[in-house]
């Protein structure tokens, strides 16, 4: 009973992430890629994403705090982050990156600062949510249950 409830809540939780736009269908792609031969694929990729993004955000903060902002340095970071977030389906981070890049193009320091805050906000949101998601999954696995497959319908 307990297990069924947990599975249900995981499903609801995942669904809410999609409905809130925190994740998009690309995340489903990742889930699809996870199989017996590679059971931790999603969490591996996401963990890599977290490591990578933490570093990028740190670099970005440093770059933007310079007296003279070198946009040639900033832009590739944002591009990188955009690519990564797009790959794991962190839609809102990606969208924030798109705006960020347009400010980089305009060399708008103020705008970039704002965008960095926005990107950070979205990043921590998705990080938080995904960590919760994994925790739920682990709990289910620990109780001997199966991770319910997400339906691709929505």
């Amino acid at each position: 009973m307990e297990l069924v409830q947990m599975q249900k809540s995981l499903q609801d939780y995942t669904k809410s992430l999609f409905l809130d736009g925190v994740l998009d269908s690309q995340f489903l792609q990742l889930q699809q890629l996870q199989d017996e031969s590679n059971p931790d694929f999603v969490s591996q990729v996401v963990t890599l994403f977290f490591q990578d993004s933490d570093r990028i955000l740190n670099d970005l903060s440093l770059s933007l705090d310079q007296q003279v902002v070198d946009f040639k340095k900033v832009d590739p970071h944002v591009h990188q982050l955009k690519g990564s977030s797009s790959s794991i389906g962190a839609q809102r981070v990606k969208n924030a990156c798109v705006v960020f890049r347009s400010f980089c193009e305009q060399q708008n320091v103020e705008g970039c600062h704002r965008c960095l805050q926005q990107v950070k906000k979205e990043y921590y949101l998705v990080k938080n949510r995904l960590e919760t998601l994994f925790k739920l999954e682990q709990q289910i696995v620990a109780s001997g249950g199966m991770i319910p497959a997400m339906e691709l319908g929505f």
Partner: protein
Amino acid sequence: MVCEMETDHQTEEMDVEVLSSMWPEDVGGTEPDNQFNVEKPAGDSDTLKEVDIAEKRTMADLKRLPDLLDTTDQGSSQLTNLVKQWEYMQDHAVRLLREELKILTKQREEAEAKELKIIEEHNFESEEPENVPVLDESSDLFRRFKEKKRDKLVGRKRIEIDEEFDTVAYWKQKALSLEKMLEASTERERRLIKKLNESLKTMESHSAPVEELTQNLKRAEGFLHFILQNAPIVMGHQDKDLRYLFIYNKFPTLREHDILGKTDVEIFHGGGVKESEDFKREVLEKGKASKREITFETDLFGSKTFLIYVEPVYNKAREKIGINYMGMEVTDQVRKREKMAKLREDNAVRKAMESELTKTIHITEETMRAKQMLATMSHEIRSPLSGVVGMAEILSTTKLDKEQRQLLNVMISSGDLVLQLINDILDLSKVESGVMKLEATKFRPREVVKHVLQTAAASLKKELTLEGNIADEVPILVVGDVLRIRQILTNLISNAIKFTHQGKVGIKLKVIPEPSFANGLELNADAEEQNGLTETETSVWIRCDVYDTGIGIPENALPCLFKKYMQASADHARKYGGTGLGLAICKQLVELMGGQLTVTSQVDLGSTFTFILPYKVATSNDHSDDQDEFSDMVDHQPEPDDSTEGYFQFKPLLGSIYSNGGPVIGNNFLPHKVMLPSPVKLINGQSEAVQVENGGCMDGPRHETRSGHCPESAHQYENGNGPCHSKESESCSSSQASSEMESEFTVSSPREEEKAETVVKETSKQPKILLVEDNKINIMVAKSMMKQLGYTFDIANNGVEAVTAINGSSYDLVLMDVCMPVLDGLKATRLIRSYEQSGNWDAAVEAGVDIKTLEDKQLCVRSTNRLPIIAMTANTLSESSEECYANGMDSFISKPVTLQKLKECLKQYLH
């Protein structure tokens, strides 16, 4: 006392705010007249000293000051006040004295009354001669004395005394008493005198007006001094020439003679001085006191702001004689005020910026989303559509009867048109965002006109004649962006047809001299560079009229005709439909190409849209080559020679292809050249070989592949209809495939078989794939996807690594990220293509890539093979598909890469 008060005052003020002195404190060495040092207690009563003090702390022309006080209203009123006050005090003193006198008089009267009473009581008569002085008092005394004497000495014996009148004793007695009387009188007199003197003395002590006035002045002065001592205030009086006659609290280093008798301008130099002088003069002229804030910028005391009050001074005759002037230093206040204003302004600006920024972010987000959506959509639509067109093309090579062929051609044209439209809608947004690039390709204007008309005729549902008329002098072959020109023509023609119900619609082409608006055609220069054309080319301006006999356009609608989403009127929009985008696109495209689009129209008679564009004329050398190729084709095609024909006409043939299946094909409808009647000719060598090897099942995908990855299938279609394009005319993306195709049309060579074998061999083994990607996460995801699809791949992290890897081993497919550090995907692809063409890595080495060249033999083999390179783009404007094709990529997958996309792509290129 005053001192104490002042220090109290100062400390009090210190608590509130440290007020810096108006003048700098370290100014000047000797300060003989520093008003802060000079402080005399007000109690000091020496008048002269007080005057000295006044002289020290103020500065006044003392000779003139009394004058001033005498002659001015203010001065005289003050004096009047003082005098009045003094008079009042004098009156007071007099009144007091009078009262005293009154009291004395009363006392005296009382005394007299008493005496009289006494005398009457004593009833005594006086017969003595009244030879005493007539002084009242003394006479009284004398009388009293006399009475007493009579009483005492004479009494009733008067007559008797009379007898003894001359006796010695009598006289003696009389003398004695008189003496006594005299003594008393003298005593009284003395007392009176004394009293008088005393009175006089008191009078005197009260009566000196000078002393009184001085005291008052002293008090007033002390008060003023006390108030003004530390105040940042300058006061002065200037005569009507604005020369200082008096100044208080002047700048410490200035001496009396520096100021008095001079004007501001003579004393100070710098900003504000002139202004203050003008202001004073203005006040003097207007006769009205007023205030103004003036900032001085002088060498003497730097930048200081004073609030200046100036009032005119009149003499008693109401004539202006000068001004009084008072200035208060408000530098700090002004600074604060300005700071506040600035802060407020900054705040407002910041707020505005903030909202602007939010708006911008919002708009950018929206725009990006819209653009991305558009890009994705166009891609999504384009791919299947090109599949449809491609299939139709292949279908057209099979055995068909004339009717079917006809239908198929229309299908291809329409599909082709939709493809173009999709591209062009994308292009419009690109033109607007400035990303649009023009391509320079060789094309035949006649053919373009004909095709446009043909396509239009194919979908024509009206009784209209379509005609094309091209002047003889129009070159056979010109260089320009044929796709755009075709689009413009198509747009204008369909527009014309839409609004024409009978008569004809046509296109007229002729060469015109260079118009005045053209100045230096950079465009062509650019195009030339891009195209790498080195032949000598001449420029030609061609005017193209698209005319109709339609409803025409009212004059008032002309101005907004080329605006987006605008039609001549709402009625039109309802009646004729359409987005209203067409003409806007045309205009933008024409202008982008350096030309001009105009319109003339008459209601009910028709309209003519005219655009003039510059083209380069291709050299005859190219032309002849092309002709050869063309003649080859002509051998197989008993069609009229399109390349020189100057007039086409398409007459309406309603119903023939739509309503019934009858084999009605008019000779003059669609003077088509149904291409490549023999299937052997098209599906030659290569694909047939594949078919054979794979048991024929690969037929579909193979062809789909061809057209699917070619964004410019329009081109191919044109080629198919008449392969009149030279190789240069092909865009990079399709050049390989189509040129192979073309060569294979004409030459049946053993090379094909050889090639087919290669293909077969390659498909039989695990394909080698190279993933060029810098993002670890993307690599991880791609790896997993590839694994699921059953492939493995090598990884290069940037363009340089990719080039090195490709040099080191041979790959069947490259998946190339566009935006990468060190060397991006576009450049890397160019280098790879250059290597394929030239057989060496010179370009790469030039670009700074360290390449170890391999043996010549391998190079030769490799260079004949075109390595499929698939871009992985983020679908942004900067990573557009066009850019990818232009740089030699074969196709692209939009990011994020999905299993489905990857699968399709691999299917296309690896079988």
